[in-house]
């Protein structure tokens, strides 16, 4: 809560001890802290955890108790002169001068250490938390089978449907046990059973198989432990991760208690990962992903599972979370494209009310629908996502809108539309899970037929450039946690992009009426729209022509470009989807260079997708999906 740590009379006495060489070539100094704990403040951890670190090197800290002063034994790589000798008397309120870099570095190191210490103590009784951090709750009556708590007491007896499901799951458990023992992810049986839903008790082994977790751990022994050790000394994301762990899934028993085992695991996994993949670091949203994984896995397993989601080409979430969110932009554009082709009425309705996809779908893409649809349904979508990869996200997004199209068309302003998609569907989706998954399966098929299932290919900037797991020390600004006052070039680009998107939508709103009656409403709407928005923005100094070019908004059609990328992933995605997923499932660890290779060819290629996406002629004439096309036995609740 209070991030300022204060230390009482810190004195470094000795600076003579041996130094280690860590296997990641980081220099580590041993610092032993003998902490002051008089009777009055043993229970007041922030005050009684004196922390002093040598900010140029790092620390192994052991805390013991003694008298009134804090004694530090430090060593600095054999060079005792490097260790600053200091006596600090800082109080909670005296904040270091903001231009004093040394002090700021020290403060950041102190803060990192203090936060880590609290997670190390975990549920230890000396780790006293503020009363508000641990709520009281009527635990057993309001908790569902996934550990999530509800506002009111759940029914004492399970209904017949629930009993029936349990019976079926018990049967499925046996089949899954057998299947897991002879695991072959390309077996059609696996696919069928995943779509039926992995039984709750089988999710742990099944998700591990789908994400290659055991192989990754075997191939990288001790890697996680070393990343975590480095994080403890160098993580610059500690404060943000701490504040997010403190509010992630607090309505789940596993995360309910402050510094519970799972909270500590979540904190560790995210910090270790920020070191493992320094180009990504930590981005809000990752806590939710790791939080879900940890509900089914152990700490180290969750680390590798998270890595797989971020790095493996099948999921490639790296590009979603890095600065500038390049994959988000790409997927939003693809989402818009699908809407304009398949659900034009709804798309125009959204645009009329300024409902940009970024407003309702960011969590769909970032955390795979968690907290936007009921948890049980989200798990079913995760099952399929882990098997089939990112095209499931694209399809599920459209499925949600498709299933709720009529209700959404009835809502006549932005706030009720957003409320419906962000809040209402989470509380009650309105259809049972099986029904939704059947609709999703049909949507996947439909999108594939229309060659819309796979988004346009990623650019090289969606993938890490440097090898993973090699420690890179953060720069001073990052260590201090000082914000940049100016936007980076990437950020400026994003700003241009998001403004361009909303500008485009504004143009679309104005022209909706005229398009509806003109021929533009059919085949050529996309390029017309692009042309119009470029014209409207041409006079705006805020938008550089570079940004228009680099975002795939080209006015002229260039089929050659499309042919040029014939051998790339985009085409593979369309025509050889099966073999592509085969490859993914068989890669035992992420392969960084093979991930990058096919992308090099088209890094700077811009494609006008209005010509790439060939719709069957009859589809254009009647753009909205016929309600019958995806309908299954209506099991509306």
């Amino acid at each position, binding site marked *: 809560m209070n991030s300022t740590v204060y230390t009482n009379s810190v004195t470094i006495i000795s600076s003579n001890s041996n130094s280690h060489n860590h296997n990641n070539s980081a220099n580590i100094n041993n610092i032993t802290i003998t902490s002051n704990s008089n009777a009055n403040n043993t229970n007041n951890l922030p005050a009684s955890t004196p922390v002093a670190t040598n900010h140029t090197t790092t620390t192994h800290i052991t805390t013991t108790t003694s008298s009134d002063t804090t004694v530090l034994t430090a060593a600095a790589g054999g060079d005792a002169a490097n260790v600053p000798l200091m006596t600090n008397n800082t109080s909670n309120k005296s904040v270091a001068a903001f231009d004093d870099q040394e002090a700021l570095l020290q403060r950041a190191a102190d803060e990192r250490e203090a936060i880590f210490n609290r997670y190390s103590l975990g549920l230890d009784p000396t780790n006293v938390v503020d009363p508000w951090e641990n709520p009281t709750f009527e635990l057993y009556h309001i908790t569902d089978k996934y550990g999530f708590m509800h506002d009111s007491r759940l029914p004492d007896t399970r209904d017949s449907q629930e009993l029936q499901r349990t019976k079926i799951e018990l049967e499925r458990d046996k089949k899954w046990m057998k299947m897991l023992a002879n695991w072959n992810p390309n077996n059609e049986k696996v696919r069928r059973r995943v779509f039926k839903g992995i039984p709750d008790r089988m999710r742990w082994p099944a998700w591990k198989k789908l994400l290659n977790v055991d192989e990754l751990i075997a191939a990288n022994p001790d890697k996680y432990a070393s990343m975590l050790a480095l994080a403890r000394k160098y993580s610059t994301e500690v404060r943000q991760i701490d504040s997010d762990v403190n509010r992630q899934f607090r309505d789940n028993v596993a995360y309910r208690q402050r510094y519970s085992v799972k909270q500590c695991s979540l904190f560790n996994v995210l910090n270790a990962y920020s070191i493992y993949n320094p180009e990504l670091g930590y981005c*809000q949203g990752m806590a939710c992903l790791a939080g879900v994984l940890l509900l089914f896995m152990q700490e180290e397993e969750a680390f590798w599972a998270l890595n797989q989601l971020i790095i493996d080409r099948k999921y490639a979430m790296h590009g979603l979370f890095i600065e500038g*969110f390049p994959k988000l932009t790409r997927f939003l554009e693809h989402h818009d494209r699908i809407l304009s082709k398949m659900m034009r009425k709804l798309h125009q309705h959204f645009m009329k009310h300024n409902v940009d996809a970024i*407003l309702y779908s*960011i969590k769909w893409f970032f955390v795979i629908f968690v907290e936007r649809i009921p948890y049980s349904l989200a798990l079913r979508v995760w099952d399929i996502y882990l098997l089939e990869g990112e095209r499931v996200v694209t399809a599920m997004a459209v499925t949600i809108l498709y299933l709720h199209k009529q209700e959404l068309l009835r809502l006549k302003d932005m706030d009720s539309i957003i409320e419906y998609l962000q809040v209402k569907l989470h509380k009650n989706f309105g259809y049972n899970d099986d029904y939704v998954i059947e609709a999703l399966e049909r949507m996947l098929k439909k999108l594939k037929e229309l060659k819309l299932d796979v988004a346009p290919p990623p650019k090289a900037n969606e993938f890490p450039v440097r090898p993973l797991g090699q420690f890179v020390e953060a720069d001073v600004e990052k260590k201090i946690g000082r*914000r940049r006052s100016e936007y980076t070039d990437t950020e400026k680009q994003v700003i241009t992009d998001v403004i361009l998107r909303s500008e485009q939508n504004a143009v679309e709103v104005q022209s909706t009426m005229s398009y509806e009656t003109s021929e533009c409403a059919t085949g050529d709407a996309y390029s017309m729209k692009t042309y119009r928005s470029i014209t409207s923005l041409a006079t705006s100094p805020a938008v550089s022509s570079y940004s228009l070019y680099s975002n795939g908004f080209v006015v002229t059609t260039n089929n050659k470009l499309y042919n040029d990328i014939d051998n790339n992933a985009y085409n593979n995605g369309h025509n050889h989807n099966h073999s592509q997923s085969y490859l993914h499932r068989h890669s035992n660890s992420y392969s960084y260079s093979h991930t990058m290779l096919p992308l090099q060819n088209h890094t700077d290629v811009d494609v006008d997708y209005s010509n790439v996406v060939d719709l069957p002629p009859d589809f254009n004439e009647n753009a909205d999906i016929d309600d019958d096309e995806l309908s299954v036995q209506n099991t509306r609740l």
Partner: protein
Amino acid sequence: MATTARSGGNASGSTAQRPNGTQQNKNCQFKLVLLGESAVGKSSLVLRFVKGQFHEYQESTIGAAFLTQTICIEDTVVKFEIWDTAGQERYHSLAPMYYRGAQAAIVVYDIQNQDSFQRAKTWVKELHKQASPNIVIALAGNKADLSNIRVVEYEEAKQYAEENGLLFMETSAKTGMNVNDIFLAIAKKLPKNDGAHNQGAPAGRRLNDNENNRQTNNCCK
């Protein structure tokens, strides 16, 4: 509280008309954006203002959240379209999308956290540089219920706000202190001209007849 906030975000049903059918109230719609460092309580302020609730463990905002609330001042019904943004620096680049065309902004900091106050100052600077020239900016020192462990002094923030022409209040989403008041103060300061229909314009958007029909006036006597 001075303001009479209507509970619930969805306006539907009754109209802004007197029983005799004459139109009495002006209706204005303003876009308001919340900015500030992560975990200072932006979402909690909005939740308190819009729904009157407080969650100890408000989930972290990914991207941005959108809510609306309608209040009345004198003869005007003011509808706030509130954009609650994510605080992590990485999401900074999405912020212009939300403050673009906004008529009002609340820049939030945590009175226990000096960094968050510094961050608030950078937001103010950015808004002065990039946002609509007439944007009304309020500075909110949140978590005022914890003023016994404050780090940012009231006077310091007050002075900064005065020097920069900002409204200023210390707020507590937890107790509700000054939450409605700060929104009300903003509403009072916003120009409520007739005829201003353009969303990008500094003046409030006067609702057209069609939108008027969705307004409720149960907060106005």
